[in-house]
């Protein structure tokens, strides 16, 4: 099934492209906010991301309506879903003026994910029908992708932590002038988002045995996605255990959250392309 043709304005990818352009504008604007040290509550960035999210949502709705199911059927859709989760969470959190500056950290990440998702090779047309034929598969995909969204947000909070921590440590004036939340709150947010992501990932992975029963032809032993998922799960488990049990807090924890998500971002697409179970 091909879904990339038709009049330009009828193509969901066009709306997603426009959304990514707005995210890009927001990312550029964020550079100025960083340079100014987040001294003022800024609505422009929030509005840019809101407009981008509206187009993004419309693009996803169009895809979903076309197939009458959750639009997470190939890598393009998976990436757009992760980006949407992050931006939607930000738009809710950003209603609190003190946390609105989170947008400056969110924008570059979702812009990066968006540009990546737009690569033509990732939007492979389905064969006869979408791969996700039942609710269980959709649930598995949605939960795991939501978990990546939570991990993405946690790395955003960790980035904010490192920015403020650096400014405080080196006595930068912008540390006291900025509107960023206190570092202990940022660490708490990072930790809670990691826990949320970890629980979602665990729940998503818990469906795998049931999915295998539905598709006995799948050979998980030969699928690189299985050890990769296990590695990601262990990575986040290790991070959380080190934080809660062995007082690995502060900078190390923040770098851990960013490093783990960077690993997910850089390897997710490659592992999916190699995975027979995730070829659509």
């Amino acid at each position, binding site marked *: 099934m091909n879904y990339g043709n038709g009049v330009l304005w009828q193509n969901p990818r066009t709306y997603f492209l426009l959304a990514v352009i707005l995210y890009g504008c927001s990312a550029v604007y964020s550079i100025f906010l960083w340079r100014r040290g987040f*001294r003022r509550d800024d609505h422009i960035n929030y509005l840019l991301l809101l407009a981008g999210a509206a187009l993004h949502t419309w693009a996803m709705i169009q895809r979903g309506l076309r197939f009458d199911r959750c639009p997470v059927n190939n890598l393009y859709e998976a990436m757009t879903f992760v980006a949407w989760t992050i931006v939607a969470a930000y738009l809710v959190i950003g209603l609190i003026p003190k946390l609105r500056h989170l947008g400056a950290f969110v924008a570059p990440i979702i812009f990066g994910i968006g540009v990546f998702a737009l690569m033509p090779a990732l939007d492979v047309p389905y064969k006869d029908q979408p791969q996700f034929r039942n609710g269980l598969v959709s649930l598995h995909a949605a939960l795991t992708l939501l978990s990546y969204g939570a991990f993405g947000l946690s790395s955003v909070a960790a980035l904010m932590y490192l920015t403020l921590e650096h400014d*405080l440590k080196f006595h930068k004036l912008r540390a*006291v002038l900025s509107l960023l939340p*206190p570092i*202990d709150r940022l660490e708490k947010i990072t930790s809670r988002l990691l826990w949320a992501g970890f629980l979602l990932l665990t729940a998503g992975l818990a469906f795998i045995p049931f999915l295998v029963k539905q598709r006995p032809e799948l050979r998980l032993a030969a699928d690189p996605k299985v050890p990769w998922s296990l590695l990601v799960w262990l990575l986040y488990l290790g991070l959380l255990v080190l934080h809660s049990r062995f007082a690995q*807090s502060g900078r190390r924890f923040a770098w851990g959250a960013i490093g783990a998500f960077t690993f997910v971002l850089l390897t997710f697409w490659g592992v999916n392309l190699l995975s027979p179970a995730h070829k659509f």
Partner: protein
Amino acid sequence: MPFLVIGLSHHSSPVTMRERFAFSEAAIPDALEKLRRQTGAAEALILSTCNRVEIYAVTASPDPPAAAALRKFLLDYHRWEEPLEDEIYCHIGARGLEHLFQVACGLDSMVLGETEILGQVKKAYELALRHRHTGGSLNKIFQRAFNVAKQIRTETNIQRGCVSVGSVAVELAEKIFSSLGKHPVLVIGAGETGEKTARALWSRGARNILVSNRSHERALALAQELGGRAIPFDDWAGEFPAIDIVLSSTAAPQHILTRARLEGLMKARKNRPLLLIDIAVPRDIDPEIKFVENVYLYNIDDLQEIADNHLQQRKEEAARCQALIRDKARALLPAAGLIGRPDLAVGNG
């Protein structure tokens, strides 16, 4: 009808003179009654604080005679017979409005951008309003002054950043800890600056305060005032695992906290963030400590530098505020039914 401001402030006169011209709150209603009777002012208001005594009036008579009458009232009321130079100023029309807006915004205050003055202006206005000494013009002028002050506060950085060492320390603590009430503070040495900073922390919610001083009686006295606990000077390290903020200001000739000692203590604290404020000279805390992870060390010069930077920024921001105030004042003049020569400032003759 002309709008006038006549008075004296910390810019124009010493405290010995300001205290002679001050009006007690209880005396203001009667003073306003006399002022209106003697000068023919249609509406009037008296603002009397420790840094200024000012009369704001809308008069029926033309500017110069009205200004002279208000000045005579001020001198006669306080029985001032000594010669004057430039201590008493008078602003008329748009210049008077600009002055009021500057006062309400803290631009004319001793501490640039402070907010206490706005509360004092509001109080003076409410007093005059309650005793029916204000009318359509002054009501409009003062309501606009409050709006301008709000706009200046929200749209500019004139009130951003603390300009005293104590409040900078509090601001730093609030950048590390979301609620000071949950984080124990250890005050080592109960000197004057240390005491002021401890009080600043207390005023922003710090409730668990431990005081340790070589003179235990002094520690007890300060701890009692702050609702905290005094501990013997040799025992403060024992309390360290629970402490999140340390305020040190002893007269010790050498460091009382070294890097090696702190690294041992940090393990007991499970690497929780620690704010160290060293306001002692010579310094109490080894500067090498700043390299310890999760530790934030600030000495008196660091705090003073931040305070000075904030003050400099406020001064730079003041120019923006002045431009905004000028526009607002000029726009209000016809709207409030006032006449006035926009740029006229009457001398002190």
